[in-house]
Protein backbone atom coordinates (compact mmCIF):
# COMPACT_ATOMS: atom_id res chain seq x y z
CA UNK A 1 0.00 0.00 0.00
CA UNK A 2 1.47 3.32 -1.08
CA UNK A 3 1.01 6.15 1.41
CA UNK A 4 -0.64 8.82 -0.73
CA UNK A 5 -0.92 11.55 1.91
CA UNK A 6 1.03 14.75 1.41
CA UNK A 7 1.34 17.89 3.49
CA UNK A 8 1.31 21.12 1.54
CA UNK A 9 2.45 23.73 4.04
CA UNK A 10 0.00 22.58 6.67
CA UNK A 11 -2.75 21.53 4.27
CA UNK A 12 -3.25 17.80 4.77
CA UNK A 13 -4.11 16.19 1.44
CA UNK A 14 -5.24 12.57 1.19
CA UNK A 15 -3.85 12.42 -2.34
CA UNK A 16 -1.27 14.60 -4.12
CA UNK A 17 -3.78 15.65 -6.82
CA UNK A 18 -5.71 18.92 -6.71
CA UNK A 19 -7.65 20.89 -9.30
CA UNK A 20 -6.34 24.19 -10.64
CA UNK A 21 -8.21 27.42 -9.99
CA UNK A 22 -10.54 28.51 -12.76
CA UNK A 23 -10.77 25.07 -14.34
CA UNK A 24 -13.02 23.37 -11.83
CA UNK A 25 -15.58 26.05 -10.89
CA UNK A 26 -16.39 25.67 -7.22
CA UNK A 27 -16.22 21.88 -7.29
CA UNK A 28 -19.89 20.94 -7.38
CA UNK A 29 -20.16 21.62 -11.13
CA UNK A 30 -18.36 18.32 -11.74
CA UNK A 31 -20.58 16.29 -9.41
CA UNK A 32 -21.01 12.84 -10.93
CA UNK A 33 -18.23 13.33 -13.49
CA UNK A 34 -15.33 11.97 -11.44
CA UNK A 35 -14.43 10.15 -8.23
CA UNK A 36 -13.80 13.00 -5.77
CA UNK A 37 -11.94 10.67 -3.40
CA UNK A 38 -9.00 10.83 -5.81
CA UNK A 39 -8.67 14.56 -5.12
CA UNK A 40 -6.51 15.79 -2.26
CA UNK A 41 -7.98 19.28 -2.67
CA UNK A 42 -10.27 21.31 -4.88
CA UNK A 43 -9.16 24.84 -5.71
CA UNK A 44 -12.06 27.23 -6.08
CA UNK A 45 -12.23 29.82 -8.83
CA UNK A 46 -10.71 33.20 -7.92
CA UNK A 47 -12.76 35.29 -5.52
CA UNK A 48 -12.50 38.92 -4.45
CA UNK A 49 -14.46 41.18 -2.11
CA UNK A 50 -17.20 42.32 -4.49
CA UNK A 51 -18.89 40.71 -7.50
CA UNK A 52 -16.84 41.00 -10.69
CA UNK A 53 -18.30 40.66 -14.22
CA UNK A 54 -15.18 39.35 -16.00
CA UNK A 55 -14.20 40.19 -19.58
CA UNK A 56 -16.25 40.61 -22.74
CA UNK A 57 -16.77 37.71 -25.17
CA UNK A 58 -15.01 35.93 -26.83
CA UNK A 59 -13.12 34.72 -23.81
CA UNK A 60 -11.17 31.82 -25.24
CA UNK A 61 -9.43 30.34 -28.26
CA UNK A 62 -8.27 26.78 -28.72
CA UNK A 63 -4.70 26.55 -30.05
CA UNK A 64 -2.41 23.61 -30.87
CA UNK A 65 -1.24 22.26 -27.53
CA UNK A 66 -3.63 24.19 -25.39
CA UNK A 67 -6.05 26.98 -24.76
CA UNK A 68 -5.76 30.75 -24.53
CA UNK A 69 -8.28 32.26 -22.17
CA UNK A 70 -9.21 35.67 -20.90
CA UNK A 71 -12.18 34.92 -18.68
CA UNK A 72 -11.24 37.80 -16.41
CA UNK A 73 -12.03 36.30 -13.01
CA UNK A 74 -15.84 36.58 -13.16
CA UNK A 75 -17.19 35.89 -9.71
CA UNK A 76 -19.87 36.66 -7.18
CA UNK A 77 -17.76 38.17 -4.41
CA UNK A 78 -16.88 36.81 -0.99
CA UNK A 79 -20.34 37.29 0.60
CA UNK A 80 -22.19 35.01 -1.80
CA UNK A 81 -19.23 32.64 -1.86
CA UNK A 82 -19.41 32.08 1.91
CA UNK A 83 -23.20 32.18 2.24
CA UNK A 84 -24.10 30.01 -0.75
CA UNK A 85 -21.20 28.53 -2.74
CA UNK A 86 -19.15 26.77 -0.07
CA UNK A 87 -22.17 25.32 1.80
CA UNK A 88 -23.51 24.10 -1.56
CA UNK A 89 -20.18 22.41 -2.37
CA UNK A 90 -20.20 20.64 1.00
CA UNK A 91 -23.80 19.55 0.57
CA UNK A 92 -23.44 18.27 -3.00
CA UNK A 93 -20.13 16.44 -2.73
CA UNK A 94 -20.07 13.66 -0.13
CA UNK A 95 -16.78 13.70 1.86
CA UNK A 96 -15.91 16.90 0.01
CA UNK A 97 -12.14 17.28 -0.46
CA UNK A 98 -10.58 20.24 1.35
CA UNK A 99 -11.03 23.50 -0.54
CA UNK A 100 -8.20 25.84 -1.40
CA UNK A 101 -9.71 29.25 -2.06
CA UNK A 102 -7.98 31.30 -4.75
CA UNK A 103 -8.19 35.02 -3.91
CA UNK A 104 -7.39 38.25 -5.73
CA UNK A 105 -8.04 41.95 -5.36
CA UNK A 106 -7.31 45.47 -6.50
CA UNK A 107 -5.28 46.37 -3.42
CA UNK A 108 -3.25 44.76 -0.65
CA UNK A 109 -6.06 45.66 1.76
CA UNK A 110 -8.59 43.82 -0.38
CA UNK A 111 -6.53 40.61 -0.40
CA UNK A 112 -6.09 40.89 3.36
CA UNK A 113 -9.80 41.45 3.98
CA UNK A 114 -10.83 38.50 1.80
CA UNK A 115 -8.28 36.34 3.65
CA UNK A 116 -9.64 37.51 7.02
CA UNK A 117 -13.22 36.65 6.08
CA UNK A 118 -12.23 33.23 4.72
CA UNK A 119 -10.31 32.46 7.88
CA UNK A 120 -13.23 33.49 10.08
CA UNK A 121 -15.67 31.43 7.98
CA UNK A 122 -13.44 28.35 7.94
CA UNK A 123 -14.12 27.94 11.66
CA UNK A 124 -17.87 27.50 11.04
CA UNK A 125 -19.53 24.20 10.18
CA UNK A 126 -21.09 25.62 6.98
CA UNK A 127 -17.70 26.57 5.52
CA UNK A 128 -15.48 23.98 7.19
CA UNK A 129 -14.28 22.77 3.76
CA UNK A 130 -12.16 25.93 3.47
CA UNK A 131 -8.67 24.76 4.45
CA UNK A 132 -6.21 26.97 2.60
CA UNK A 133 -5.82 30.24 0.73
CA UNK A 134 -4.10 30.59 -2.62
CA UNK A 135 -3.11 34.19 -3.41
CA UNK A 136 -3.34 34.88 -7.12
CA UNK A 137 -0.65 37.42 -7.94
CA UNK A 138 -0.34 36.42 -11.55
CA UNK A 139 -3.59 36.52 -13.53
CA UNK A 140 -2.68 38.00 -16.92
CA UNK A 141 -6.29 38.88 -17.69
CA UNK A 142 -7.26 41.70 -15.36
CA UNK A 143 -5.68 45.09 -15.67
CA UNK A 144 -6.30 45.93 -12.06
CA UNK A 145 -5.12 43.51 -9.41
CA UNK A 146 -3.39 40.15 -9.66
CA UNK A 147 -0.70 40.67 -12.20
CA UNK A 148 0.94 43.79 -10.75
CA UNK A 149 1.56 42.13 -7.39
CA UNK A 150 3.45 39.25 -8.96
CA UNK A 151 5.97 41.29 -10.90
CA UNK A 152 7.76 43.24 -8.20
CA UNK A 153 9.35 41.29 -5.33
CA UNK A 154 8.97 44.20 -2.89
CA UNK A 155 5.26 44.59 -3.65
CA UNK A 156 4.82 40.82 -3.47
CA UNK A 157 6.48 40.75 -0.05
CA UNK A 158 4.17 43.45 1.24
CA UNK A 159 1.13 41.60 -0.08
CA UNK A 160 2.12 38.22 1.34
CA UNK A 161 2.94 39.63 4.79
CA UNK A 162 -0.33 41.60 4.89
CA UNK A 163 -2.37 38.50 4.05
CA UNK A 164 -0.28 36.43 6.46
CA UNK A 165 -1.21 38.84 9.27
CA UNK A 166 -4.91 38.13 8.65
CA UNK A 167 -4.94 34.36 8.31
CA UNK A 168 -3.95 31.25 10.19
CA UNK A 169 -4.92 29.07 7.21
CA UNK A 170 -2.13 27.57 5.11
CA UNK A 171 -1.12 30.37 2.73
CA UNK A 172 -0.14 29.43 -0.81
CA UNK A 173 1.09 32.05 -3.30
CA UNK A 174 0.48 31.43 -7.01
CA UNK A 175 3.43 32.89 -8.88
CA UNK A 176 3.72 34.40 -12.34
CA UNK A 177 5.75 32.32 -14.81
CA UNK A 178 6.85 35.24 -16.97
CA UNK A 179 9.70 36.59 -14.87
CA UNK A 180 13.39 36.45 -15.80
CA UNK A 181 14.36 34.80 -12.50
CA UNK A 182 11.88 33.11 -10.15
CA UNK A 183 14.18 33.25 -7.10
CA UNK A 184 13.51 36.82 -5.86
CA UNK A 185 9.76 36.06 -5.96
CA UNK A 186 10.21 32.80 -4.09
CA UNK A 187 12.22 34.65 -1.45
CA UNK A 188 9.58 37.39 -1.15
CA UNK A 189 6.98 34.71 -0.43
CA UNK A 190 9.20 32.96 2.06
CA UNK A 191 10.07 36.17 3.91
CA UNK A 192 6.44 37.31 3.82
CA UNK A 193 5.36 34.17 5.67
CA UNK A 194 3.86 32.01 2.89
CA UNK A 195 3.45 28.30 3.65
CA UNK A 196 3.63 27.05 0.07
CA UNK A 197 3.94 28.12 -3.55
CA UNK A 198 1.80 27.20 -6.52
CA UNK A 199 3.02 27.46 -10.05
CA UNK A 200 2.61 28.06 -12.85
CA UNK A 201 -0.16 30.39 -13.81
CA UNK A 202 -0.99 30.74 -17.52
CA UNK A 203 1.61 32.27 -19.81
CA UNK A 204 0.60 35.60 -21.45
CA UNK A 205 -0.47 34.88 -25.01
CA UNK A 206 -2.34 36.25 -28.01
CA UNK A 207 -4.23 34.79 -30.95
CA UNK A 208 -5.04 36.74 -34.13
CA UNK A 209 -7.80 36.09 -36.63
CA UNK A 210 -5.87 36.79 -39.82
CA UNK A 211 -8.97 37.07 -42.03
CA UNK A 212 -10.58 39.72 -39.86
CA UNK A 213 -7.17 41.12 -38.85
CA UNK A 214 -8.36 41.31 -35.25
CA UNK A 215 -7.39 39.67 -31.99
CA UNK A 216 -9.61 36.62 -31.33
CA UNK A 217 -10.11 37.51 -27.67
CA UNK A 218 -12.15 40.57 -26.73
CA UNK A 219 -9.50 41.25 -24.10
CA UNK A 220 -6.89 41.21 -26.92
CA UNK A 221 -4.49 39.06 -24.89
CA UNK A 222 -5.00 36.09 -22.61
CA UNK A 223 -3.20 33.29 -20.83
CA UNK A 224 -1.96 30.05 -22.41
CA UNK A 225 -2.61 26.81 -20.57
CA UNK A 226 -2.58 23.14 -21.50
CA UNK A 227 -0.18 20.58 -22.82
CA UNK A 228 2.20 23.05 -24.49
CA UNK A 229 3.21 24.84 -21.27
CA UNK A 230 4.16 21.69 -19.34
CA UNK A 231 7.93 21.59 -19.96
CA UNK A 232 8.18 25.29 -19.12
CA UNK A 233 6.31 24.63 -15.88
CA UNK A 234 8.56 21.70 -14.94
CA UNK A 235 11.61 23.93 -15.37
CA UNK A 236 10.17 26.66 -13.14
CA UNK A 237 9.20 24.16 -10.44
CA UNK A 238 12.71 22.74 -10.61
CA UNK A 239 14.23 26.22 -10.26
CA UNK A 240 11.91 27.22 -7.42
CA UNK A 241 12.46 24.01 -5.49
CA UNK A 242 16.23 24.52 -5.59
CA UNK A 243 15.71 28.00 -4.11
CA UNK A 244 13.35 27.17 -1.24
CA UNK A 245 12.14 24.66 1.31
CA UNK A 246 8.54 25.79 0.80
CA UNK A 247 6.40 22.97 -0.59
CA UNK A 248 5.19 23.48 -4.17
CA UNK A 249 1.80 22.78 -5.71
CA UNK A 250 2.72 22.32 -9.38
CA UNK A 251 0.44 22.83 -12.34
CA UNK A 252 0.68 23.40 -16.06
CA UNK A 253 -0.29 20.83 -18.68
CA UNK A 254 -0.96 17.80 -16.49
CA UNK A 255 -2.88 15.43 -18.77
CA UNK A 256 -1.59 12.09 -17.50
CA UNK A 257 0.29 10.60 -14.56
CA UNK A 258 3.63 11.01 -16.34
CA UNK A 259 3.21 14.80 -16.35
CA UNK A 260 2.40 14.83 -12.63
CA UNK A 261 5.34 12.57 -11.75
CA UNK A 262 7.71 14.88 -13.64
CA UNK A 263 6.54 17.69 -11.36
CA UNK A 264 7.05 15.57 -8.23
CA UNK A 265 10.54 14.55 -9.31
CA UNK A 266 11.37 18.20 -10.06
CA UNK A 267 10.50 19.06 -6.47
CA UNK A 268 6.73 19.50 -6.21
CA UNK A 269 4.83 18.17 -3.19
CA UNK A 270 1.48 18.04 -4.97
CA UNK A 271 0.12 18.65 -8.45
CA UNK A 272 -2.99 20.26 -9.89
CA UNK A 273 -4.90 19.24 -12.98
CA UNK A 274 -6.31 22.16 -14.95
CA UNK A 275 -7.17 22.50 -18.62
CA UNK A 276 -7.10 18.70 -19.11
CA UNK A 277 -10.34 18.46 -17.14
CA UNK A 278 -12.14 20.18 -20.02
CA UNK A 279 -11.37 17.35 -22.42
CA UNK A 280 -11.75 14.61 -19.82
CA UNK A 281 -13.64 15.49 -16.61
CA UNK A 282 -12.29 12.40 -14.83
CA UNK A 283 -8.63 13.00 -15.73
CA UNK A 284 -7.68 13.78 -12.10
CA UNK A 285 -8.74 10.27 -11.04
CA UNK A 286 -6.60 8.74 -13.79
CA UNK A 287 -3.61 10.89 -12.85
CA UNK A 288 -3.95 9.80 -9.23
CA UNK A 289 -4.12 6.09 -9.97
CA UNK A 290 -1.19 6.45 -12.35
CA UNK A 291 0.92 8.06 -9.62
CA UNK A 292 0.14 5.19 -7.23
CA UNK A 293 0.99 2.66 -9.91
CA UNK A 294 4.32 4.45 -10.53
CA UNK A 295 5.17 4.37 -6.80
CA UNK A 296 4.48 0.64 -6.68
CA UNK A 297 6.53 -0.03 -9.79
CA UNK A 298 9.51 2.00 -8.53
CA UNK A 299 9.35 0.87 -4.91
CA UNK A 300 8.32 4.21 -3.41
CA UNK A 301 6.48 3.56 -0.13
CA UNK A 302 4.95 7.02 -0.21
CA UNK A 303 4.12 9.69 -2.76
CA UNK A 304 5.99 12.22 -0.64
CA UNK A 305 9.22 10.30 -1.18
CA UNK A 306 8.94 10.95 -4.93
CA UNK A 307 9.28 14.69 -4.29
CA UNK A 308 12.66 15.85 -5.60
CA UNK A 309 13.78 12.24 -6.17
CA UNK A 310 15.36 13.34 -9.43
CA UNK A 311 18.70 11.61 -9.98
Amino acid sequence: MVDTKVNLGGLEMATPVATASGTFGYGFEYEGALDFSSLGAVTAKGIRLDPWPGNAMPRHAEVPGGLVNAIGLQGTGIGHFLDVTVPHYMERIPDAPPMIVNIWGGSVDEYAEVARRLTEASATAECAAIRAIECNVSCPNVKEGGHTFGHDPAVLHRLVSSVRAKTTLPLIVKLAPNVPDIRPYVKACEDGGADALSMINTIPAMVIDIERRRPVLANVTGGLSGRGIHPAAVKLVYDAHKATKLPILAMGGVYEAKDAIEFLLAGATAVAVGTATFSDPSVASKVFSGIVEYCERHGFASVSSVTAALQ
Partner: protein
Amino acid sequence: MTDAAAKVVEHENIGSGYRRIVFDAQELASALAPGQFVHVKVPALEESALRRPFSVFDAADGKVTVLYKTVGRGTAALNSASVGDTVCVLGPLGRGFPVSCDGSALLVGGGYGVAPLHFLARRLKEKGFDDMTVFIGGRTSDDLLAVERFRALGVDVRLATNDGSAGVKGLVTDPLDDVLASLRGSGKRFELFACGPDPMLKAVAMRATGTGMKGWISMDRHMICGVGACYACIQKTVRGNSRCCVEGPVFRAEDLVWE
Protein backbone atom coordinates in the same frame (compact mmCIF):
# COMPACT_ATOMS: atom_id res chain seq x y z
CA MET B 1 -24.52 13.91 -15.65
CA THR B 2 -22.43 11.04 -16.93
CA ASP B 3 -19.61 10.75 -19.42
CA ALA B 4 -20.94 7.87 -21.50
CA ALA B 5 -18.73 5.76 -23.77
CA ALA B 6 -21.24 5.71 -26.61
CA LYS B 7 -21.02 3.63 -29.75
CA VAL B 8 -21.73 5.32 -33.09
CA VAL B 9 -24.54 3.31 -34.68
CA GLU B 10 -25.37 5.57 -37.65
CA HIS B 11 -23.54 8.44 -39.34
CA GLU B 12 -24.69 9.85 -42.65
CA ASN B 13 -24.75 12.86 -44.94
CA ILE B 14 -28.12 14.51 -45.09
CA GLY B 15 -27.08 16.97 -47.78
CA SER B 16 -25.62 20.47 -48.09
CA GLY B 17 -22.84 19.85 -45.56
CA TYR B 18 -25.24 18.70 -42.86
CA ARG B 19 -24.76 15.33 -41.18
CA ARG B 20 -26.64 13.12 -38.79
CA ILE B 21 -24.87 10.98 -36.17
CA VAL B 22 -26.57 8.50 -33.84
CA PHE B 23 -25.06 7.27 -30.57
CA ASP B 24 -26.06 4.19 -28.62
CA ALA B 25 -26.30 5.62 -25.08
CA GLN B 26 -29.09 4.06 -23.05
CA GLU B 27 -28.82 6.08 -19.84
CA LEU B 28 -28.18 9.38 -21.59
CA ALA B 29 -31.10 8.90 -23.99
CA SER B 30 -33.58 8.45 -21.17
CA ALA B 31 -32.15 11.35 -19.12
CA LEU B 32 -32.08 13.99 -21.88
CA ALA B 33 -34.74 16.68 -22.14
CA PRO B 34 -35.42 18.81 -25.25
CA GLY B 35 -33.06 21.79 -25.53
CA GLN B 36 -30.35 20.18 -23.42
CA PHE B 37 -27.01 19.45 -25.05
CA VAL B 38 -24.19 16.92 -24.99
CA HIS B 39 -20.45 17.62 -24.88
CA VAL B 40 -18.61 15.32 -27.30
CA LYS B 41 -14.97 14.29 -27.26
CA VAL B 42 -14.29 14.14 -30.98
CA PRO B 43 -12.19 10.98 -31.52
CA ALA B 44 -10.16 12.20 -34.51
CA LEU B 45 -8.91 15.30 -32.69
CA GLU B 46 -5.82 15.16 -30.48
CA GLU B 47 -6.40 13.73 -26.99
CA SER B 48 -6.06 17.18 -25.40
CA ALA B 49 -8.59 18.90 -27.69
CA LEU B 50 -11.58 20.62 -26.14
CA ARG B 51 -14.95 18.95 -26.41
CA ARG B 52 -17.64 20.19 -28.78
CA PRO B 53 -21.20 20.92 -27.67
CA PHE B 54 -24.14 19.66 -29.75
CA SER B 55 -27.86 20.04 -29.23
CA VAL B 56 -29.93 16.90 -29.46
CA PHE B 57 -32.23 16.17 -32.39
CA ASP B 58 -33.79 13.11 -30.83
CA ALA B 59 -33.39 10.84 -27.83
CA ALA B 60 -35.45 7.67 -27.84
CA ASP B 61 -35.06 3.92 -27.56
CA GLY B 62 -31.60 4.21 -26.06
CA LYS B 63 -30.29 6.28 -28.99
CA VAL B 64 -29.19 9.89 -29.09
CA THR B 65 -29.27 11.67 -32.46
CA VAL B 66 -27.32 14.83 -33.29
CA LEU B 67 -27.55 16.95 -36.46
CA TYR B 68 -24.54 19.05 -37.28
CA LYS B 69 -22.95 21.13 -39.98
CA THR B 70 -19.24 21.13 -40.71
CA VAL B 71 -18.28 24.63 -39.60
CA GLY B 72 -14.81 24.25 -38.07
CA ARG B 73 -12.02 21.93 -37.03
CA GLY B 74 -14.10 19.97 -34.51
CA THR B 75 -17.05 19.26 -36.75
CA ALA B 76 -14.70 18.47 -39.66
CA ALA B 77 -12.96 15.89 -37.46
CA LEU B 78 -16.28 14.46 -36.32
CA ASN B 79 -16.97 13.63 -39.99
CA SER B 80 -14.47 10.79 -39.75
CA ALA B 81 -16.19 9.01 -36.84
CA SER B 82 -17.27 5.62 -38.15
CA VAL B 83 -20.08 3.31 -37.21
CA GLY B 84 -18.74 1.11 -34.42
CA ASP B 85 -16.42 3.79 -32.98
CA THR B 86 -16.76 4.63 -29.31
CA VAL B 87 -17.14 8.29 -28.45
CA CYS B 88 -17.24 9.96 -24.99
CA VAL B 89 -20.48 11.90 -24.68
CA LEU B 90 -21.00 14.00 -21.55
CA GLY B 91 -24.58 14.85 -20.66
CA PRO B 92 -27.32 15.73 -20.20
CA LEU B 93 -26.16 19.33 -19.89
CA GLY B 94 -27.85 22.70 -19.58
CA ARG B 95 -31.39 23.93 -19.16
CA GLY B 96 -33.71 22.91 -21.95
CA PHE B 97 -37.16 23.96 -23.12
CA PRO B 98 -40.20 23.42 -20.90
CA VAL B 99 -42.17 20.46 -22.25
CA SER B 100 -45.44 22.31 -21.84
CA CYS B 101 -47.13 25.20 -23.56
CA ASP B 102 -49.92 27.63 -22.76
CA GLY B 103 -51.77 28.06 -26.07
CA SER B 104 -50.27 27.49 -29.51
CA ALA B 105 -46.67 26.28 -29.64
CA LEU B 106 -44.74 28.21 -32.30
CA LEU B 107 -41.35 26.64 -33.01
CA VAL B 108 -38.90 28.75 -35.02
CA GLY B 109 -35.66 27.31 -36.35
CA GLY B 110 -32.86 28.04 -38.78
CA GLY B 111 -30.19 25.64 -40.09
CA TYR B 112 -29.23 22.97 -37.56
CA GLY B 113 -31.20 25.00 -35.02
CA VAL B 114 -34.19 22.85 -35.90
CA ALA B 115 -32.54 19.97 -33.99
CA PRO B 116 -33.72 20.74 -30.43
CA LEU B 117 -37.09 21.89 -31.80
CA HIS B 118 -37.65 18.46 -33.32
CA PHE B 119 -36.90 16.80 -29.97
CA LEU B 120 -39.27 19.27 -28.30
CA ALA B 121 -42.01 18.60 -30.85
CA ARG B 122 -41.72 14.87 -30.26
CA ARG B 123 -41.95 15.22 -26.48
CA LEU B 124 -44.88 17.65 -26.67
CA LYS B 125 -46.62 15.21 -29.00
CA GLU B 126 -45.99 12.34 -26.58
CA LYS B 127 -47.73 14.42 -23.91
CA GLY B 128 -50.75 14.70 -26.20
CA PHE B 129 -50.10 18.30 -27.21
CA ASP B 130 -51.21 18.95 -30.80
CA ASP B 131 -51.36 22.69 -31.37
CA MET B 132 -47.89 23.10 -32.89
CA THR B 133 -46.49 24.99 -35.88
CA VAL B 134 -42.83 24.92 -36.86
CA PHE B 135 -41.32 27.75 -38.93
CA ILE B 136 -38.12 26.74 -40.65
CA GLY B 137 -35.92 29.24 -42.42
CA GLY B 138 -32.72 29.15 -44.45
CA ARG B 139 -30.84 30.76 -47.31
CA THR B 140 -32.00 28.11 -49.78
CA SER B 141 -34.12 24.95 -49.69
CA ASP B 142 -30.90 23.01 -48.91
CA ASP B 143 -30.79 24.62 -45.47
CA LEU B 144 -34.26 23.43 -44.50
CA LEU B 145 -33.66 20.36 -42.37
CA ALA B 146 -35.96 17.72 -40.99
CA VAL B 147 -39.04 19.05 -42.76
CA GLU B 148 -40.45 15.55 -43.33
CA ARG B 149 -39.63 14.53 -39.76
CA PHE B 150 -41.78 17.36 -38.44
CA ARG B 151 -44.58 16.44 -40.85
CA ALA B 152 -44.35 12.81 -39.72
CA LEU B 153 -44.97 14.03 -36.16
CA GLY B 154 -48.10 15.78 -37.41
CA VAL B 155 -46.66 19.27 -36.94
CA ASP B 156 -47.84 22.09 -39.22
CA VAL B 157 -44.70 23.17 -41.17
CA ARG B 158 -44.15 26.69 -42.63
CA LEU B 159 -41.05 27.37 -44.70
CA ALA B 160 -39.15 30.49 -45.74
CA THR B 161 -36.00 30.90 -47.83
CA ASN B 162 -34.02 33.97 -48.82
CA ASP B 163 -34.02 32.92 -52.47
CA GLY B 164 -37.57 31.63 -52.56
CA SER B 165 -36.46 28.09 -53.49
CA ALA B 166 -38.86 26.71 -50.86
CA GLY B 167 -41.75 28.25 -48.97
CA VAL B 168 -42.17 32.00 -48.93
CA LYS B 169 -39.35 34.19 -50.21
CA GLY B 170 -38.02 36.11 -47.26
CA LEU B 171 -37.22 35.61 -43.61
CA VAL B 172 -38.62 32.96 -41.30
CA THR B 173 -40.27 35.75 -39.34
CA ASP B 174 -42.49 36.56 -42.36
CA PRO B 175 -44.74 33.47 -42.09
CA LEU B 176 -44.40 33.73 -38.30
CA ASP B 177 -45.77 37.27 -38.32
CA ASP B 178 -48.78 36.16 -40.37
CA VAL B 179 -49.64 33.52 -37.77
CA LEU B 180 -48.95 35.90 -34.87
CA ALA B 181 -51.31 38.46 -36.43
CA SER B 182 -54.13 35.96 -36.67
CA LEU B 183 -53.53 34.66 -33.12
CA ARG B 184 -53.57 38.20 -31.77
CA GLY B 185 -56.74 38.86 -33.74
CA SER B 186 -58.46 35.92 -32.09
CA GLY B 187 -56.93 36.70 -28.67
CA LYS B 188 -55.42 33.24 -28.50
CA ARG B 189 -52.41 32.59 -26.27
CA PHE B 190 -49.10 31.25 -27.64
CA GLU B 191 -45.49 30.52 -26.69
CA LEU B 192 -42.42 30.85 -28.91
CA PHE B 193 -39.56 28.33 -28.96
CA ALA B 194 -36.53 29.21 -31.06
CA CYS B 195 -33.08 27.99 -32.01
CA GLY B 196 -30.86 29.22 -34.85
CA PRO B 197 -28.57 32.09 -35.78
CA ASP B 198 -28.41 35.09 -33.42
CA PRO B 199 -30.23 37.64 -35.65
CA MET B 200 -33.14 35.23 -36.01
CA LEU B 201 -33.21 34.57 -32.27
CA LYS B 202 -33.23 38.28 -31.52
CA ALA B 203 -36.11 38.81 -33.95
CA VAL B 204 -38.11 36.01 -32.32
CA ALA B 205 -37.30 37.18 -28.79
CA MET B 206 -38.56 40.68 -29.66
CA ARG B 207 -41.89 39.15 -30.70
CA ALA B 208 -42.35 37.63 -27.24
CA THR B 209 -40.91 40.33 -24.97
CA GLY B 210 -43.55 42.63 -23.55
CA THR B 211 -46.48 40.71 -25.07
CA GLY B 212 -47.33 38.71 -21.97
CA MET B 213 -46.53 35.58 -23.99
CA LYS B 214 -43.54 33.45 -23.23
CA GLY B 215 -40.52 33.07 -25.49
CA TRP B 216 -37.87 30.38 -25.04
CA ILE B 217 -34.64 31.13 -26.87
CA SER B 218 -31.83 28.58 -27.28
CA MET B 219 -28.43 30.26 -27.64
CA ASP B 220 -25.47 28.72 -29.47
CA ARG B 221 -22.09 29.65 -27.96
CA HIS B 222 -18.59 28.24 -28.10
CA MET B 223 -17.99 26.38 -24.86
CA ILE B 224 -15.07 24.97 -22.95
CA CYS B 225 -16.28 22.91 -19.99
CA GLY B 226 -20.02 22.58 -20.67
CA VAL B 227 -20.80 22.28 -16.95
CA GLY B 228 -20.58 25.85 -15.62
CA ALA B 229 -17.02 25.67 -14.32
CA CYS B 230 -15.01 27.86 -16.70
CA TYR B 231 -17.20 30.92 -17.46
CA ALA B 232 -16.26 31.06 -21.15
CA CYS B 233 -19.72 30.84 -22.78
CA ILE B 234 -21.23 34.06 -21.54
CA GLN B 235 -24.59 35.46 -22.61
CA LYS B 236 -25.63 38.86 -21.30
CA THR B 237 -28.92 38.69 -19.42
CA VAL B 238 -30.84 40.86 -16.97
CA ARG B 239 -28.92 39.01 -14.25
CA GLY B 240 -25.51 39.99 -15.70
CA ASN B 241 -23.04 37.67 -17.42
CA SER B 242 -24.85 34.32 -17.49
CA ARG B 243 -23.26 31.03 -18.46
CA CYS B 244 -24.88 29.58 -21.55
CA CYS B 245 -24.03 26.01 -20.53
CA VAL B 246 -25.85 25.92 -17.18
CA GLU B 247 -28.11 28.99 -17.02
CA GLY B 248 -29.01 28.25 -20.67
CA PRO B 249 -28.72 27.31 -23.45
CA VAL B 250 -32.47 27.98 -23.34
CA PHE B 251 -33.21 31.40 -21.85
CA ARG B 252 -36.46 33.25 -21.35
CA ALA B 253 -36.78 35.87 -24.09
CA GLU B 254 -37.30 38.73 -21.63
CA ASP B 255 -34.11 37.83 -19.74
CA LEU B 256 -31.81 38.22 -22.75
CA VAL B 257 -29.82 41.40 -23.31
CA TRP B 258 -28.88 41.94 -26.98
CA GLU B 259 -25.78 43.84 -27.96
